[in-house]
């Protein structure tokens, strides 16, 4: 498939708390691909994901979504371009599961595979529960469903298999394959070796540099 890339970063430097974590980043994500982001703990995977989503962790570089510099895209339209999982440490404990899904939902006419994935991740009986009542694995499921509900072209996932049982992990893999087949793009920060089986490319952070490997 040839499109303008869903996301493109040129000469990027990712910085957090005045320390540069990764530099010389030149990456682009085409639609229809599953990309992995790997590297040791603390190497800056999560920060890079946030930087790619438009949070202020880029000290230099040009970030473009679908060929347009991110500064020229309104916050509202950025929401259509990329989705991100909620962080496990966010203080959202008063909200119910259905509130979270409703707040993250960006498209009432989702493709069938997305709706199916959401209902698989979040069974009806936990819909009315408050987030703080959930186990870690259940929380991950809800946040995955939330990321899917955003229905953005590029899906950014941070440790999506943490706490998931084998069945949910398989359901996630099935969904991701179907998702990219429908023209979406996925970038997953992970330590999970199993996800390599479904990925097209792997970006590895090593010595503050990003290296690419086709899988």
């Amino acid at each position, binding site marked *: 498939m040839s499109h303008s890339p869903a996301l493109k970063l040129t000469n990027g430097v990712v910085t957090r708390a005045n320390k540069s974590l990764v530099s010389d980043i030149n990456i682009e994500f085409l639609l229809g691909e599953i990309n992995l982001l790997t590297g040791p703990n603390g190497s800056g995977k999560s920060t890079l994901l946030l930087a790619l989503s438009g*949070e202020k962790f880029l000290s230099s570089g040009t970030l473009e979504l679908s060929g347009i510099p991110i500064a020229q895209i309104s916050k509202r339209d950025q929401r259509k371009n990329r989705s991100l999982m909620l*962080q496990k440490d966010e203080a*959202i404990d*008063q909200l119910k599961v259905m*509130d*979270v899904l409703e707040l993250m939902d960006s498209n009432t006419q989702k493709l069938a595979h997305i709706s199916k994935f959401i209902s698989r991740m979040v069974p009806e009986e936990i819909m009315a529960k408050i987030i703080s009542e959930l186990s870690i694995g259940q929380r991950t499921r809800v946040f995955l469903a939330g990321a899917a509900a955003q229905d953005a072209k590029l899906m950014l996932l941070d440790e999506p298999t943490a706490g998931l049982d084998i069945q949910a992990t398989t359901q996630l893999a099935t969904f991701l394959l179907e998702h990219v087949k429908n023209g979406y793009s996925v970038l997953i920060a992970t330590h999970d070796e199993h996800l390599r089986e479904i990925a097209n490319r792997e970006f590895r952070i090593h010595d503050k540099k990003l290296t690419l490997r086709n899988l």
Partner: protein
Amino acid sequence: MIKIKPGLLIAILSLLVASAIVANLSFGAYQLSLSQIWQSLFSSRGTDAISDSVLLDIRLPRIILGLAIGIALAGSTSLMQTSMRNVLADPALLGLAAASALGVVVALVFGYDFGSFAAFVFALIFTVLAFLLLLVGHFGGRKAASQNTLIIGVALGSLFLGVLGILATTLDNPQLRSMALWSFGSLSLATQTTANVSLVASLAGLLLAWLIAPKLDLLLLGERAASLLGVETRKIRMFALLLISLLVTAAVFGAGVIAFLGLFSVTIARVLVGPRHRVLLITSALISVLTILVCDLLARTVAAPMDLPIGFFTSLVGAPVLITILLRSKSES
């Protein structure tokens, strides 16, 4: 969690508020029957001079002021709790109400009348300034810490009350007397003007809060998530700040500093209907209005013809109810 459908709850509360309004029109040092109330309200003046005057000059403004204060306190408290991400935030606790009160007294010192529009503007300016000070404390330090903000707010409040006390001693006696009553929270100074100004300001505040409620909901997912989901978080916070100042001013201008009622009604509403803002704003406003009307009825009748400060009753009724509901919702979940 106590389970009740929000729509049903809002209907029940509205009905209770309506009955409380009728009770407040009818009971007091001078009893009025329903037909007298009906005649005074809906037929031309002059049929019965005393009941007309009691109703239209005293009781109705007081009820309107009660509605305004209830809406303003509940609205400002829920906005504050969301924008500061702290369920303990309350305009009286964080010194904003004291700042508003100080603004009114400064207006009096400059020679403006109690209850005048100028006094409202002074109160609004002082509230905004106090809020900015609070924000400097919240975001200006090396690390944003909501605990510090609480302490700074409490400190500011006591500072403002001190200045207010000093200024008050410079005022003439009649003004001083009404001020003393007012600064401890009372509806007894309600005139048609104060009541109407308060009501317009609080309804405007509530409407604007209703409009930004979906964005406030996204803030509940956390600062970063809200930003990623398309909320200009800085802008929405600044806007919320202005709304909070408007609402606090609306409350204090009319009825002084009624502590605790905002925290009380928002906490109960959140237990009953959850944190989503539209339903929370409406439910907490109804609870707050109902509490004010019931407490004011008590304040006017238990020692009639003496008019006790409403703050006595909001504390006496509020504290046990709040503690009971919190304990029950904890043990059931």
